[in-house]
Protein backbone atom coordinates (compact mmCIF):
# COMPACT_ATOMS: atom_id res chain seq x y z
CA UNK A 1 0.00 0.00 0.00
CA UNK A 2 2.95 2.30 0.60
CA UNK A 3 3.83 1.94 -3.08
CA UNK A 4 0.50 3.62 -3.87
CA UNK A 5 1.71 6.89 -2.32
CA UNK A 6 2.68 8.53 -5.64
CA UNK A 7 -0.89 7.93 -6.84
CA UNK A 8 -2.34 9.66 -3.80
CA UNK A 9 -0.31 12.84 -4.18
CA UNK A 10 -1.98 14.26 -7.31
CA UNK A 11 -5.33 13.35 -5.72
CA UNK A 12 -4.37 15.38 -2.68
CA UNK A 13 -3.70 18.40 -4.85
CA UNK A 14 -7.15 18.08 -6.36
CA UNK A 15 -8.94 18.16 -3.03
CA UNK A 16 -11.11 21.26 -2.54
CA UNK A 17 -8.84 24.22 -1.99
CA UNK A 18 -9.67 27.28 0.07
CA UNK A 19 -10.61 30.57 -1.51
CA UNK A 20 -7.52 32.61 -2.29
CA UNK A 21 -9.25 35.80 -1.15
CA UNK A 22 -10.68 34.22 1.95
CA UNK A 23 -12.98 36.34 4.08
CA UNK A 24 -11.89 35.12 7.47
CA UNK A 25 -9.22 35.89 10.03
CA UNK A 26 -7.14 33.66 12.26
CA UNK A 27 -7.29 34.23 16.04
CA UNK A 28 -4.74 36.67 17.51
CA UNK A 29 -1.18 35.42 17.90
CA UNK A 30 -1.56 32.98 15.00
CA UNK A 31 1.63 31.97 13.25
CA UNK A 32 1.96 32.66 9.50
CA UNK A 33 -0.82 30.84 7.67
CA UNK A 34 1.19 27.88 6.33
CA UNK A 35 2.92 27.23 9.62
CA UNK A 36 -0.38 27.64 11.46
CA UNK A 37 -2.16 24.97 9.39
CA UNK A 38 0.76 22.60 9.96
CA UNK A 39 0.80 22.87 13.73
CA UNK A 40 -2.92 23.28 14.51
CA UNK A 41 -4.40 19.93 15.58
CA UNK A 42 -8.01 21.15 15.59
CA UNK A 43 -8.68 20.53 19.27
CA UNK A 44 -11.03 23.52 19.50
CA UNK A 45 -9.78 24.76 22.88
CA UNK A 46 -9.41 28.32 21.53
CA UNK A 47 -13.05 28.30 20.42
CA UNK A 48 -13.96 26.91 23.83
CA UNK A 49 -12.38 29.66 25.90
CA UNK A 50 -13.38 32.58 23.65
CA UNK A 51 -15.71 34.66 25.87
CA UNK A 52 -16.92 36.57 22.83
CA UNK A 53 -17.91 33.45 20.83
CA UNK A 54 -16.10 34.91 17.80
CA UNK A 55 -13.88 31.88 17.14
CA UNK A 56 -15.53 28.99 15.32
CA UNK A 57 -14.04 25.92 13.66
CA UNK A 58 -14.07 25.33 9.92
CA UNK A 59 -15.99 22.53 8.33
CA UNK A 60 -15.12 21.62 4.76
CA UNK A 61 -16.22 24.97 3.32
CA UNK A 62 -12.67 26.34 3.03
CA UNK A 63 -10.97 23.20 1.78
CA UNK A 64 -9.50 20.17 3.48
CA UNK A 65 -6.41 22.02 4.67
CA UNK A 66 -8.52 24.27 6.90
CA UNK A 67 -10.77 21.54 8.33
CA UNK A 68 -11.30 21.95 12.10
CA UNK A 69 -8.99 24.98 12.29
CA UNK A 70 -10.24 28.15 14.02
CA UNK A 71 -11.51 31.19 12.18
CA UNK A 72 -12.98 34.59 12.98
CA UNK A 73 -15.59 36.13 10.71
CA UNK A 74 -15.16 39.75 11.69
CA UNK A 75 -18.44 40.95 10.16
CA UNK A 76 -20.42 38.45 12.24
CA UNK A 77 -18.44 38.72 15.50
CA UNK A 78 -15.09 40.47 15.78
CA UNK A 79 -12.23 39.74 18.15
CA UNK A 80 -12.16 41.78 21.37
CA UNK A 81 -8.42 41.06 21.86
CA UNK A 82 -8.85 39.44 25.28
CA UNK A 83 -6.03 36.99 24.37
CA UNK A 84 -7.77 34.07 26.13
CA UNK A 85 -7.24 31.84 23.07
CA UNK A 86 -3.51 32.52 22.88
CA UNK A 87 -3.07 31.27 26.45
CA UNK A 88 -4.58 27.83 25.86
CA UNK A 89 -3.18 26.59 22.53
CA UNK A 90 -1.54 23.18 23.21
CA UNK A 91 0.69 23.29 20.10
CA UNK A 92 1.69 26.98 20.13
CA UNK A 93 -0.03 27.47 16.78
CA UNK A 94 -1.30 30.56 18.57
CA UNK A 95 1.66 32.16 20.27
CA UNK A 96 1.12 33.35 23.83
CA UNK A 97 0.21 37.02 24.18
CA UNK A 98 -0.66 38.92 27.34
CA UNK A 99 -3.94 40.85 27.70
CA UNK A 100 -2.03 44.12 28.07
CA UNK A 101 -1.78 47.14 25.74
CA UNK A 102 1.62 45.83 24.57
CA UNK A 103 0.18 42.38 23.87
CA UNK A 104 -2.71 43.98 22.02
CA UNK A 105 -0.34 46.00 19.82
CA UNK A 106 1.65 42.85 18.99
CA UNK A 107 -1.40 41.23 17.36
CA UNK A 108 -1.34 41.03 13.58
CA UNK A 109 -4.53 39.46 12.27
CA UNK A 110 -4.94 41.64 9.21
CA UNK A 111 -5.33 45.14 7.93
CA UNK A 112 -8.52 47.18 7.53
CA UNK A 113 -9.37 48.62 4.12
CA UNK A 114 -11.91 51.38 3.54
CA UNK A 115 -14.02 51.23 0.40
CA UNK A 116 -14.45 54.97 -0.05
CA UNK A 117 -17.32 54.67 -2.53
CA UNK A 118 -19.37 52.79 0.08
CA UNK A 119 -18.41 54.82 3.15
CA UNK A 120 -21.00 57.30 4.53
CA UNK A 121 -18.35 59.76 5.67
CA UNK A 122 -16.66 59.82 2.29
CA UNK A 123 -20.07 60.60 0.80
CA UNK A 124 -20.21 63.68 2.98
CA UNK A 125 -22.43 62.35 5.80
CA UNK A 126 -20.73 62.26 9.17
CA UNK A 127 -20.60 58.72 10.60
CA UNK A 128 -17.38 57.71 12.45
CA UNK A 129 -18.79 54.43 13.82
CA UNK A 130 -15.66 52.48 12.86
CA UNK A 131 -13.42 54.97 14.64
CA UNK A 132 -15.45 54.57 17.82
CA UNK A 133 -15.20 50.79 17.60
CA UNK A 134 -11.42 50.81 17.08
CA UNK A 135 -9.40 49.58 20.11
CA UNK A 136 -6.47 51.80 19.05
CA UNK A 137 -8.16 55.09 18.13
CA UNK A 138 -5.75 57.76 17.01
CA UNK A 139 -3.08 55.17 16.34
CA UNK A 140 -4.50 52.58 14.00
CA UNK A 141 -7.21 54.89 12.74
CA UNK A 142 -7.52 58.65 12.57
CA UNK A 143 -10.41 60.81 11.44
CA UNK A 144 -10.48 63.29 8.60
CA UNK A 145 -13.14 65.65 7.35
CA UNK A 146 -16.73 64.50 8.17
CA UNK A 147 -15.17 61.79 10.38
CA UNK A 148 -13.72 60.00 7.38
CA UNK A 149 -11.70 57.00 8.62
CA UNK A 150 -8.00 56.78 7.69
CA UNK A 151 -6.37 53.44 8.59
CA UNK A 152 -2.68 53.44 9.43
CA UNK A 153 -1.22 50.18 8.19
CA UNK A 154 1.74 50.19 10.55
CA UNK A 155 -0.50 50.16 13.64
CA UNK A 156 -3.70 48.33 12.60
CA UNK A 157 -3.97 44.96 14.39
CA UNK A 158 -6.85 43.66 12.27
CA UNK A 159 -9.24 42.80 15.10
CA UNK A 160 -12.23 43.56 12.85
CA UNK A 161 -14.24 45.58 15.38
CA UNK A 162 -14.57 48.36 12.76
CA UNK A 163 -15.89 45.87 10.21
CA UNK A 164 -18.43 44.52 12.69
CA UNK A 165 -19.55 48.04 13.62
CA UNK A 166 -19.89 49.44 10.07
CA UNK A 167 -23.45 50.64 9.45
CA UNK A 168 -23.24 50.09 5.70
CA UNK A 169 -24.48 46.93 4.01
CA UNK A 170 -22.22 45.60 2.57
CA UNK A 171 -19.63 46.93 4.96
CA UNK A 172 -17.50 49.84 3.76
CA UNK A 173 -14.51 48.72 5.85
CA UNK A 174 -13.06 45.21 5.63
CA UNK A 175 -10.19 43.44 7.35
CA UNK A 176 -7.92 41.35 5.10
CA UNK A 177 -5.11 39.09 6.36
CA UNK A 178 -1.81 40.75 5.54
CA UNK A 179 -0.36 37.69 3.81
CA UNK A 180 -3.05 38.05 1.15
CA UNK A 181 -2.42 41.69 0.42
CA UNK A 182 0.24 40.70 -2.10
CA UNK A 183 -2.46 38.83 -4.05
CA UNK A 184 -4.51 42.00 -4.39
CA UNK A 185 -4.58 43.74 -7.77
CA UNK A 186 -1.61 46.07 -7.76
CA UNK A 187 0.20 43.96 -5.18
CA UNK A 188 -0.21 45.97 -1.98
CA UNK A 189 2.51 45.20 0.56
CA UNK A 190 1.99 47.03 3.81
CA UNK A 191 4.05 45.96 6.79
CA UNK A 192 3.05 46.29 10.39
CA UNK A 193 5.47 47.92 12.79
CA UNK A 194 6.34 45.69 15.72
Amino acid at each position, binding site marked *: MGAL*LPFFLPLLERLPQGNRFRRFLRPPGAKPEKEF*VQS*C*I*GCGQCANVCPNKCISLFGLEAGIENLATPKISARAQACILCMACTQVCPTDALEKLEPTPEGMRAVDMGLAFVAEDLCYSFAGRTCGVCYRACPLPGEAMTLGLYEQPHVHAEHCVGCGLCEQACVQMPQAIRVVPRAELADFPGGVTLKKQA
Partner: protein
Amino acid sequence: MKILRSQAHQWFRHLVQLSVFLGIVATACLANYRIFLSQNQVETIRAQEVESSPRSAVLAMDRLYHGSGTGETASDPHQSRQETLARLKAIRGNTWSAELYGLSLTDPLAGAESIAAGKKINRALLLGLLIPVVATLLLGRFFCSWICPAGFLFDMADKVRALLAKMRLPLHNTPLWHGNKYVLLVVGLALAGVSSIPLLGFFYPPALVGREIHTAVDSFFGNLAENPQRAGAISLTAISLFLLGIVFVEVFLSRRVWCRCLCPGGALYTLLGAARLVRVKNDHPRCTHCTECVKVCPMGLNPMSHDTPGPECDHCLACLPACAPGSLSLEFGLPRISSRKRKESSPPAPTSSTR
Protein backbone atom coordinates in the same frame (compact mmCIF):
# COMPACT_ATOMS: atom_id res chain seq x y z
CA MET B 1 -5.99 -10.76 42.26
CA LYS B 2 -9.33 -12.31 43.14
CA ILE B 3 -11.22 -9.32 41.74
CA LEU B 4 -9.59 -9.95 38.35
CA ARG B 5 -11.35 -13.31 38.22
CA SER B 6 -14.80 -11.73 38.61
CA GLN B 7 -16.75 -9.65 36.14
CA ALA B 8 -16.64 -6.65 38.52
CA HIS B 9 -13.59 -5.00 36.97
CA GLN B 10 -15.28 -5.00 33.57
CA TRP B 11 -18.10 -2.92 35.04
CA PHE B 12 -15.47 -0.70 36.63
CA ARG B 13 -13.83 -0.28 33.22
CA HIS B 14 -17.12 0.72 31.61
CA LEU B 15 -17.69 3.14 34.49
CA VAL B 16 -14.31 4.78 33.79
CA GLN B 17 -15.12 5.00 30.07
CA LEU B 18 -18.54 6.46 30.81
CA SER B 19 -17.11 9.08 33.17
CA VAL B 20 -14.59 10.16 30.50
CA PHE B 21 -17.43 10.40 27.98
CA LEU B 22 -19.63 12.39 30.37
CA GLY B 23 -16.59 14.45 31.35
CA ILE B 24 -16.28 15.67 27.76
CA VAL B 25 -19.97 16.62 27.81
CA ALA B 26 -19.42 18.40 31.12
CA THR B 27 -16.42 20.40 29.84
CA ALA B 28 -18.48 21.50 26.84
CA CYS B 29 -21.34 22.58 29.15
CA LEU B 30 -18.94 24.45 31.45
CA ALA B 31 -17.39 26.21 28.45
CA ASN B 32 -20.83 27.44 27.43
CA TYR B 33 -21.70 28.49 30.97
CA ARG B 34 -18.42 30.41 31.11
CA ILE B 35 -19.35 32.24 27.90
CA PHE B 36 -22.80 33.10 29.29
CA LEU B 37 -21.22 34.30 32.53
CA SER B 38 -18.55 36.43 30.87
CA GLN B 39 -21.14 38.00 28.60
CA ASN B 40 -23.45 38.82 31.54
CA GLN B 41 -26.05 36.61 29.87
CA VAL B 42 -26.61 34.54 33.00
CA GLU B 43 -28.53 37.47 34.51
CA THR B 44 -30.74 37.61 31.41
CA ILE B 45 -31.28 33.87 31.50
CA ARG B 46 -32.24 34.01 35.18
CA ALA B 47 -34.81 36.69 34.39
CA GLN B 48 -36.31 34.77 31.46
CA GLU B 49 -39.80 33.44 32.01
CA VAL B 50 -39.87 30.89 29.20
CA GLU B 51 -39.01 27.42 30.47
CA SER B 52 -36.62 25.52 28.20
CA SER B 53 -34.14 22.71 28.64
CA PRO B 54 -31.00 24.78 27.91
CA ARG B 55 -32.26 27.39 30.38
CA SER B 56 -32.69 24.86 33.15
CA ALA B 57 -29.24 23.45 32.33
CA VAL B 58 -27.69 26.91 32.68
CA LEU B 59 -29.60 27.54 35.92
CA ALA B 60 -28.42 24.20 37.31
CA MET B 61 -24.81 25.16 36.56
CA ASP B 62 -25.48 28.57 38.04
CA ARG B 63 -26.70 27.03 41.31
CA LEU B 64 -23.67 24.74 41.31
CA TYR B 65 -21.27 27.66 41.01
CA HIS B 66 -23.09 30.41 42.88
CA GLY B 67 -25.11 28.77 45.61
CA SER B 68 -28.88 29.21 45.69
CA GLY B 69 -29.16 31.02 42.36
CA THR B 70 -29.02 34.45 43.96
CA GLY B 71 -25.90 35.39 42.05
CA GLU B 72 -22.69 36.82 43.44
CA THR B 73 -22.37 35.94 47.10
CA ALA B 74 -18.97 37.51 47.80
CA SER B 75 -18.68 41.11 48.94
CA ASP B 76 -17.16 42.16 45.62
CA PRO B 77 -19.34 40.87 42.76
CA HIS B 78 -16.68 41.57 40.13
CA GLN B 79 -14.05 39.63 42.10
CA SER B 80 -16.43 36.71 42.57
CA ARG B 81 -17.20 36.60 38.85
CA GLN B 82 -13.52 36.64 37.95
CA GLU B 83 -12.83 33.82 40.40
CA THR B 84 -15.63 31.71 38.96
CA LEU B 85 -14.39 32.33 35.44
CA ALA B 86 -10.85 31.31 36.41
CA ARG B 87 -12.19 28.19 38.12
CA LEU B 88 -14.25 27.27 35.06
CA LYS B 89 -11.24 27.72 32.79
CA ALA B 90 -9.21 25.08 34.65
CA ILE B 91 -10.86 22.12 32.87
CA ARG B 92 -11.22 22.23 29.11
CA GLY B 93 -10.80 20.24 25.93
CA ASN B 94 -11.39 16.58 25.13
CA THR B 95 -9.28 13.45 24.85
CA TRP B 96 -7.65 14.77 21.66
CA SER B 97 -6.14 17.58 23.68
CA ALA B 98 -7.16 18.65 27.15
CA GLU B 99 -6.04 20.70 30.08
CA LEU B 100 -6.88 19.63 33.63
CA TYR B 101 -5.88 22.13 36.31
CA GLY B 102 -2.74 23.21 34.49
CA LEU B 103 -1.88 19.70 33.39
CA SER B 104 -1.68 19.69 29.59
CA LEU B 105 -2.56 16.36 27.95
CA THR B 106 -2.34 15.78 24.20
CA ASP B 107 -2.99 12.59 22.25
CA PRO B 108 0.33 11.14 20.96
CA LEU B 109 -1.25 10.83 17.50
CA ALA B 110 -1.99 14.57 17.51
CA GLY B 111 1.62 15.23 18.45
CA ALA B 112 2.97 12.78 15.86
CA GLU B 113 1.02 14.30 12.99
CA SER B 114 1.71 17.86 14.11
CA ILE B 115 5.43 17.04 14.14
CA ALA B 116 5.17 15.23 10.78
CA ALA B 117 3.33 18.15 9.17
CA GLY B 118 5.41 20.97 10.66
CA LYS B 119 8.76 19.08 10.73
CA LYS B 120 9.58 20.67 14.04
CA ILE B 121 8.79 20.24 17.72
CA ASN B 122 7.84 22.96 20.14
CA ARG B 123 7.95 23.02 23.89
CA ALA B 124 4.22 23.33 24.57
CA LEU B 125 3.49 20.23 22.50
CA LEU B 126 6.24 18.24 24.21
CA LEU B 127 4.86 19.17 27.64
CA GLY B 128 1.41 17.99 26.59
CA LEU B 129 2.77 14.74 25.16
CA LEU B 130 4.92 13.90 28.17
CA ILE B 131 2.33 12.26 30.44
CA PRO B 132 0.41 10.26 27.76
CA VAL B 133 3.60 8.97 26.14
CA VAL B 134 5.23 7.93 29.42
CA ALA B 135 1.99 6.27 30.58
CA THR B 136 1.80 4.36 27.28
CA LEU B 137 5.44 3.28 27.50
CA LEU B 138 4.80 1.86 30.97
CA LEU B 139 1.25 0.52 30.66
CA GLY B 140 0.87 -0.19 26.94
CA ARG B 141 -2.25 0.41 24.94
CA PHE B 142 -4.49 1.11 27.96
CA PHE B 143 -5.96 4.31 26.40
CA CYS B 144 -8.00 2.27 23.90
CA SER B 145 -9.98 0.27 26.45
CA TRP B 146 -10.06 2.57 29.48
CA ILE B 147 -10.24 6.17 28.21
CA CYS B 148 -11.07 6.40 24.49
CA PRO B 149 -14.66 7.77 24.17
CA ALA B 150 -15.04 6.11 20.76
CA GLY B 151 -13.81 2.85 22.26
CA PHE B 152 -16.66 3.18 24.76
CA LEU B 153 -19.19 3.54 21.91
CA PHE B 154 -17.71 0.53 20.13
CA ASP B 155 -17.69 -1.49 23.38
CA MET B 156 -21.41 -0.79 23.74
CA ALA B 157 -21.92 -1.73 20.07
CA ASP B 158 -20.13 -5.00 20.87
CA LYS B 159 -22.63 -5.62 23.67
CA VAL B 160 -25.47 -5.05 21.17
CA ARG B 161 -23.74 -7.47 18.82
CA ALA B 162 -23.56 -10.09 21.59
CA LEU B 163 -27.26 -9.57 22.26
CA LEU B 164 -28.13 -9.98 18.58
CA ALA B 165 -25.96 -13.08 18.40
CA LYS B 166 -27.94 -14.52 21.32
CA MET B 167 -31.10 -13.93 19.26
CA ARG B 168 -29.45 -16.05 16.55
CA LEU B 169 -29.29 -13.28 13.98
CA PRO B 170 -26.90 -13.99 11.11
CA LEU B 171 -23.94 -11.74 11.96
CA HIS B 172 -20.88 -11.80 9.76
CA ASN B 173 -17.37 -11.67 11.13
CA THR B 174 -15.27 -10.80 8.11
CA PRO B 175 -11.60 -11.07 9.01
CA LEU B 176 -9.28 -8.20 8.13
CA TRP B 177 -5.52 -8.03 8.39
CA HIS B 178 -4.49 -6.46 11.72
CA GLY B 179 -1.53 -4.74 10.06
CA ASN B 180 -3.84 -2.40 8.17
CA LYS B 181 -3.69 0.06 11.04
CA TYR B 182 0.10 0.36 10.81
CA VAL B 183 -0.19 0.97 7.07
CA LEU B 184 -2.83 3.64 7.76
CA LEU B 185 -0.61 5.25 10.40
CA VAL B 186 2.49 5.30 8.16
CA VAL B 187 0.60 6.46 5.06
CA GLY B 188 -1.27 9.08 7.11
CA LEU B 189 1.91 10.45 8.66
CA ALA B 190 3.66 10.41 5.26
CA LEU B 191 0.75 12.28 3.66
CA ALA B 192 0.77 14.75 6.56
CA GLY B 193 4.49 15.26 5.99
CA VAL B 194 4.14 15.69 2.21
CA SER B 195 1.01 17.85 2.22
CA SER B 196 1.80 19.69 5.49
CA ILE B 197 -1.79 19.13 6.65
CA PRO B 198 -2.41 17.04 9.82
CA LEU B 199 -4.82 14.64 8.12
CA LEU B 200 -5.09 11.77 10.61
CA GLY B 201 -7.26 13.69 13.06
CA PHE B 202 -10.02 13.91 10.44
CA PHE B 203 -10.85 10.22 10.72
CA TYR B 204 -9.62 9.36 14.22
CA PRO B 205 -12.79 8.50 16.20
CA PRO B 206 -11.79 9.79 19.68
CA ALA B 207 -10.97 13.22 18.20
CA LEU B 208 -14.19 13.16 16.20
CA VAL B 209 -16.30 12.15 19.21
CA GLY B 210 -14.85 15.04 21.22
CA ARG B 211 -15.48 17.50 18.41
CA GLU B 212 -19.01 16.21 17.85
CA ILE B 213 -19.92 16.43 21.54
CA HIS B 214 -18.70 20.03 21.61
CA THR B 215 -20.69 20.86 18.45
CA ALA B 216 -23.83 19.31 19.88
CA VAL B 217 -23.55 21.01 23.28
CA ASP B 218 -22.67 24.39 21.69
CA SER B 219 -25.76 24.21 19.48
CA PHE B 220 -27.89 23.17 22.48
CA PHE B 221 -26.88 26.31 24.38
CA GLY B 222 -26.65 28.45 21.24
CA ASN B 223 -30.37 27.83 20.70
CA LEU B 224 -31.11 29.34 24.09
CA ALA B 225 -29.40 32.64 23.27
CA GLU B 226 -30.35 32.99 19.63
CA ASN B 227 -33.20 30.69 18.70
CA PRO B 228 -35.73 30.13 21.51
CA GLN B 229 -38.15 28.32 19.19
CA ARG B 230 -35.64 25.50 18.86
CA ALA B 231 -34.95 25.15 22.59
CA GLY B 232 -33.70 21.69 23.45
CA ALA B 233 -32.65 20.87 19.89
CA ILE B 234 -29.07 19.91 19.10
CA SER B 235 -27.34 19.86 15.73
CA LEU B 236 -24.99 17.10 14.63
CA THR B 237 -22.58 16.92 11.72
CA ALA B 238 -21.34 14.30 9.23
CA ILE B 239 -19.05 13.01 11.99
CA SER B 240 -22.07 11.30 13.56
CA LEU B 241 -22.78 9.51 10.28
CA PHE B 242 -19.17 8.32 10.10
CA LEU B 243 -19.31 6.97 13.67
CA LEU B 244 -22.71 5.37 13.05
CA GLY B 245 -21.24 3.72 9.95
CA ILE B 246 -18.43 2.21 12.00
CA VAL B 247 -20.93 1.01 14.62
CA PHE B 248 -23.09 -0.57 11.90
CA VAL B 249 -20.10 -2.37 10.35
CA GLU B 250 -18.92 -3.57 13.75
CA VAL B 251 -22.34 -4.89 14.78
CA PHE B 252 -23.28 -6.65 11.55
CA LEU B 253 -20.17 -7.25 9.46
CA SER B 254 -16.98 -7.53 11.42
CA ARG B 255 -16.48 -7.51 15.18
CA ARG B 256 -14.57 -4.49 16.55
CA VAL B 257 -12.95 -4.02 13.12
CA TRP B 258 -11.97 -0.38 13.68
CA CYS B 259 -9.98 -0.89 16.89
CA ARG B 260 -8.52 -4.19 15.71
CA CYS B 261 -7.49 -3.37 12.19
CA LEU B 262 -7.94 0.27 11.18
CA CYS B 263 -7.32 2.72 14.02
CA PRO B 264 -4.10 4.69 13.39
CA GLY B 265 -4.08 5.81 17.02
CA GLY B 266 -4.28 2.21 18.20
CA ALA B 267 -1.31 1.44 15.95
CA LEU B 268 0.72 4.27 17.48
CA TYR B 269 -0.19 3.18 21.02
CA THR B 270 0.76 -0.41 20.17
CA LEU B 271 4.17 0.67 18.87
CA LEU B 272 4.79 2.97 21.85
CA GLY B 273 3.74 0.35 24.37
CA ALA B 274 5.64 -2.59 22.89
CA ALA B 275 7.95 -2.78 25.91
CA ARG B 276 5.24 -2.32 28.53
CA LEU B 277 5.58 -3.36 32.15
CA VAL B 278 2.12 -4.98 32.52
CA ARG B 279 1.02 -8.00 30.54
CA VAL B 280 -1.58 -10.74 30.52
CA LYS B 281 0.31 -13.99 30.98
CA ASN B 282 -0.72 -17.56 30.33
CA ASP B 283 0.45 -20.19 32.80
CA HIS B 284 0.86 -23.05 30.34
CA PRO B 285 0.60 -26.14 32.58
CA ARG B 286 -2.82 -25.00 33.83
CA CYS B 287 -4.19 -23.96 30.40
CA THR B 288 -6.74 -26.41 29.01
CA HIS B 289 -6.87 -24.76 25.52
CA CYS B 290 -10.61 -24.20 25.84
CA THR B 291 -10.34 -21.00 23.66
CA GLU B 292 -12.82 -19.12 25.90
CA CYS B 293 -10.35 -16.20 26.19
CA VAL B 294 -9.93 -16.09 22.40
CA LYS B 295 -13.71 -15.88 21.94
CA VAL B 296 -14.07 -13.08 24.46
CA CYS B 297 -11.09 -10.92 23.40
CA PRO B 298 -12.42 -7.67 21.84
CA MET B 299 -9.10 -7.10 20.07
CA GLY B 300 -9.21 -10.50 18.36
CA LEU B 301 -6.00 -11.67 19.98
CA ASN B 302 -5.06 -15.08 21.30
CA PRO B 303 -4.14 -14.79 24.99
CA MET B 304 -3.36 -18.51 25.30
CA SER B 305 -1.13 -19.06 22.28
CA HIS B 306 2.13 -18.03 23.92
CA ASP B 307 3.18 -16.14 27.03
CA THR B 308 1.43 -12.87 26.24
CA PRO B 309 -1.22 -11.82 23.72
CA GLY B 310 1.33 -9.43 22.23
CA PRO B 311 1.70 -5.66 22.08
CA GLU B 312 -1.77 -5.16 20.56
CA CYS B 313 -3.40 -6.12 23.88
CA ASP B 314 -5.23 -3.08 25.25
CA HIS B 315 -5.54 -4.36 28.84
CA CYS B 316 -9.33 -4.51 28.87
CA LEU B 317 -8.83 -7.68 31.01
CA ALA B 318 -11.97 -9.31 29.60
CA CYS B 319 -10.06 -12.60 29.19
CA LEU B 320 -9.29 -12.97 32.91
CA PRO B 321 -12.84 -13.74 34.17
CA ALA B 322 -13.47 -15.87 31.06
CA CYS B 323 -10.59 -18.22 31.90
CA ALA B 324 -12.18 -21.14 33.77
CA PRO B 325 -8.95 -22.96 34.77
CA GLY B 326 -7.47 -19.66 35.95
CA SER B 327 -4.28 -19.96 33.97
CA LEU B 328 -4.38 -16.32 32.80
CA SER B 329 -3.02 -13.69 35.15
CA LEU B 330 -1.48 -10.24 35.11
CA GLU B 331 2.30 -10.07 35.09
CA PHE B 332 4.30 -7.03 36.12
CA GLY B 333 7.91 -6.30 35.26
CA LEU B 334 10.24 -5.94 32.31
CA PRO B 335 9.46 -8.11 29.27
CA ARG B 336 11.66 -11.18 29.02
CA ILE B 337 13.88 -11.50 25.97
CA SER B 338 13.44 -15.29 25.93
CA SER B 339 9.72 -15.12 25.19
CA ARG B 340 10.30 -15.98 21.52
CA LYS B 341 12.08 -19.23 22.46
CA ARG B 342 9.20 -20.16 24.73
CA LYS B 343 6.79 -19.50 21.91
CA GLU B 344 8.59 -22.03 19.73
CA SER B 345 8.72 -24.66 22.46
CA SER B 346 5.10 -24.24 23.55
CA PRO B 347 2.53 -26.51 21.90
CA PRO B 348 0.86 -24.92 18.84
CA ALA B 349 -2.48 -23.49 19.83
CA PRO B 350 -5.60 -24.51 17.96
CA THR B 351 -6.74 -21.66 15.74
CA SER B 352 -10.24 -20.45 16.30
CA SER B 353 -12.80 -19.21 13.83
CA THR B 354 -13.73 -16.30 16.06
CA ARG B 355 -10.34 -14.69 15.59
